[in-house]
């Protein structure tokens, strides 16, 4: 199919998000949609999918005008969306098969009673044909995050889509899973499906897309192809100004060991981990999903049990018990899941920023609200958090700015060790740059950082050293010229061969 958008405008209240978009998406092509958060990518996706009606402008499918009043209209026209939050696509309490056929419009699996047996058989076939190994009877909530995402994709594919919109599909996937996703995307393209691919990961997009469309401030700022352009040009179009070094890593490592792990184990998650982190150093941990890198950080923060080995902080023995104790010892943890574990979204920016350091502005049990506000303002300025006011609830901010608020909370604790997991997930380019700048600034102050990231370029460029974990053990330590994306991948995936 061919989808043509002309002069699309969309506003929420007084806020005009799309200011006249002209865009054509063709079948058999991957059109990447790029832009900072707030540029309008997600809103545009929702206009296409029928979730939001446009205020002005026309939508044409294969030459004829259409107007969608609700998502079902778009779905009938063959448009499917895989949301970044695929909770929106799936029913966690139901099984894989039930989810696949939730929208069973043809009544193939029963009109009044659902024909479970047939459903599961069909599901089995579909999953196999897509190379997915999950059981059709498994409950969605028991699936891992990448598996859930795969299921959401399978579902969209199954519903005979002519246009599929992928919204940040690899945000929660590691390298191997991302590859599997790309296979599916290419398959769809070969079948003539039009694909709109929204992502922040430029390398990925350059490798996958046929056309690049960059949105900035609600209009199309650049339309080109990977061959005719470069990452730098794209970033410049997104940000509106030349961006010099994308990964501005400074090297501030010292010889002073602040964190030492010896033979650290957590039963069932990781074992025998030896690690040394110096002040001012960024140690990256690479590995595929489930290798134990996340568990390692969480056990240092008191969230998972340590069943063996020892931890030393600044030479003194340390037993991680609770987050509270960890913070008191100078360790803080930036969770990868800012929605569920990081931010209290109804609370204000200022409150979220001071959430871990209330004691410092409390006297006699009462919080000094002025100080809380002042801290919020200071952090907003320091991290360039785009918010109308620090008293706004965090929910009103874009993803990148939310992440900055979360980071700001930890910076307020003046940590000695910063454990960061997926610090730039779902974050736009501008905010990413800001976060990298913060990493540099912290290291220059002597803070030690442990960086877990499944964004390979980020991991490699922002770390002084990279250790690779596989199935719970440290299998490689890379430094200097050995620290390349290829070598990290190689060590991370070796088990696939054996």
């Amino acid at each position, binding site marked *: 199919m061919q989808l043509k958008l002309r002069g699309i405008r969309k506003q*929420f*209240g*007084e*806020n005009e*998000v799309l200011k006249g978009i002209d865009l054509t998406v063709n079948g058999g092509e991957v059109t990447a949609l790029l832009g900072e*958060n*707030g540029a309008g*990518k*997600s*809103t545009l*996706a*929702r206009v296409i999918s029928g979730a939001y009606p446009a205020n002005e402008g026309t939508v044409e499918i294969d030459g004829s005008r259409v107007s969608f009043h609700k998502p079902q209209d778009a779905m009938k026209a063959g448009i499917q969306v895989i*949301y*970044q*939050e695929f909770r*929106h696509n799936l029913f966690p309490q139901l099984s894989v098969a039930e989810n696949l056929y939730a929208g069973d419009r043809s009544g193939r699996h029963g009109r009044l009673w659902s024909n479970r047996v047939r459903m599961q058989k069909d599901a089995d076939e579909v999953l196999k044909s897509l190379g997915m190994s999950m059981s059709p009877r498994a409950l969605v909530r028991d699936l891992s995050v990448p598996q859930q995402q795969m299921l959401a994709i399978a579902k969209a594919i199954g519903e005979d889509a002519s246009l599929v919109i992928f*919204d*940040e599909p690899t945000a929660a996937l590691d390298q191997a899973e991302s590859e599997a996703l790309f296979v599916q995307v290419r398959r769809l393209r070969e079948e003539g499906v039009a694909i709109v691919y929204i992502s922040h990961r430029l390398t990925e997009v350059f490798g996958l897309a046929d056309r690049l469309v960059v949105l900035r401030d609600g209009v199309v700022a650049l339309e080109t192809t990977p061959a005719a352009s470069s990452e730098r040009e794209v970033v410049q179009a997104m940000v509106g100004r030349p961006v010099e070094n994308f990964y501005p890593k400074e090297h501030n490592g010292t010889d002073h060991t602040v964190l030492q792990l010896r033979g650290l184990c957590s039963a069932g998650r990781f074992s025998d981990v030896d690690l040394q982190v110096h002040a001012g150093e960024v140690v990256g941990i690479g590995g595929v999903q489930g290798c134990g890198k996340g568990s390692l950080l969480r056990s240092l*923060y008191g*969230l998972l049990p340590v069943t063996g080995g020892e931890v030393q902080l600044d030479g003194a023995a340390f037993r991680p018990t*609770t*987050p*509270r104790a*960890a*913070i*008191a010892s100078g360790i803080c*943890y930036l*969770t990868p899941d800012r*929605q*569920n*574990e*990081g*931010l*209290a*979204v*109804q*609370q*204000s920016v200022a*409150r979220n920023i001071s*959430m*871990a350091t*209330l*004691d410092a502005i*409390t006297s006699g*049990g*009462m*919080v000094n*609200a002025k100080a809380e506000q002042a801290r919020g303002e200071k952090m907003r300025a320091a991290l360039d958090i785009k918010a*109308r*006011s620090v*008293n*706004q*609830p965090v*929910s*009103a*901010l*874009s*993803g990148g700015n*939310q992440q900055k608020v979360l980071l700001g*909370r930890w910076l307020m604790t003046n940590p000695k060790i910063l454990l960061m997991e997926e610090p730039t997930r779902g974050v736009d380019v501008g905010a990413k740059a800001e976060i990298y700048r913060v990493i540099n600034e912290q290291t220059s102050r002597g803070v030690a950082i442990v960086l877990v990231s499944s964004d390979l370029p980020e991991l490699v460029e922002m770390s002084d050293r990279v250790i690779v974990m596989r199935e719970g053990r440290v299998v490689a330590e890379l430094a200097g010229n050995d620290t390349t994306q290829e070598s990290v991948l190689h060590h991370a995936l070796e088990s696939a061969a054996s």
Partner: protein
Amino acid sequence: MNRLSALALQLRAVWMLLGVALILVVATPFFFTSSNLMAIALAASITALLAIGETFVIILGGIDLSVGAMLGFTSVITAMVLPHAGLVWGLLAGLGAGAGAGLINGLLVTKVNMPSFIATLASLSILSGLTLYLTKGNPVGVSSEAFRLIGTGRILGVPTPIWILLVCAVVFGTLLARSRFGRQVYATGDNFEAAHLSGMPVTRVKVAAFVISGVLAGIAGFILAARLGTAQPSAGKGLELTAIAAVIIGGTSLLGGRGAVVGTVIGALLLGTIDNGLNLLNVSPFLQDVVKGAVILFAVFVDRNAGPIRIIAQSFKHVIPRAPTPTKESVPTR
């Protein structure tokens, strides 16, 4: 929403109260007299106190169904201790009983991980049964004049229970809005995991909220027993629902993370005003429940974001606070 909108949500209860009051002012000359207004506050003081405690629990994302039973229980304990040990010990016994019951609720919810709905339903049953057992169904009379003054006395011409309500509202309102504990309550209610990861003592916070609920039920228990001159085992029966209604009308969300004491007190006053109005206007008993339900439904339904009101409101765009815009993130957050 920014501070103005958050305040506006609390103020919603004020608009509704003013609306009902306006109707009553027009309908009867007896409404707007100082003695009637005090009568409203007096009658509402009991539910308001229960509702203040309930506010803490609901902001934390839980619910306390046992406050009515706690009221009956604590007032009976007080009445039983009074003649033997005097006023102070009687009051302390009641407060202790309330705190103890609240503690058990808190522990059931945090340590045993029972949903608060079930835990407090169980304690409701246990407490009212215990109270019945202790009193064999008979009310326990209170003869201590000093105690009765709590309910019937006046300070500066205003009935004592209203002062008690005022003090509690200020104390607990300030606790919620300004103290570190209050911040912890909001944060824990908004996102338990995030609060935990930020080093907040989330378990202690939750338990404390239930204890507060119990203590306030105890205070409400004194006042009722003092006003009536007896502690009745069934005294608080059904009051938990009125208390919860007051909290919701006042702008606190059942989902947690949002709300304030001010709104709750106004919600309780609104409900008391409706009762008062029904009596003043001599509305037929068969219609009373209908009218009450309809007013509450209307009051909660008329959110400034809702249909016809929004259209009217949009023409007064600059006078009435704007509804919050959807988030810029691609995904709705909660």
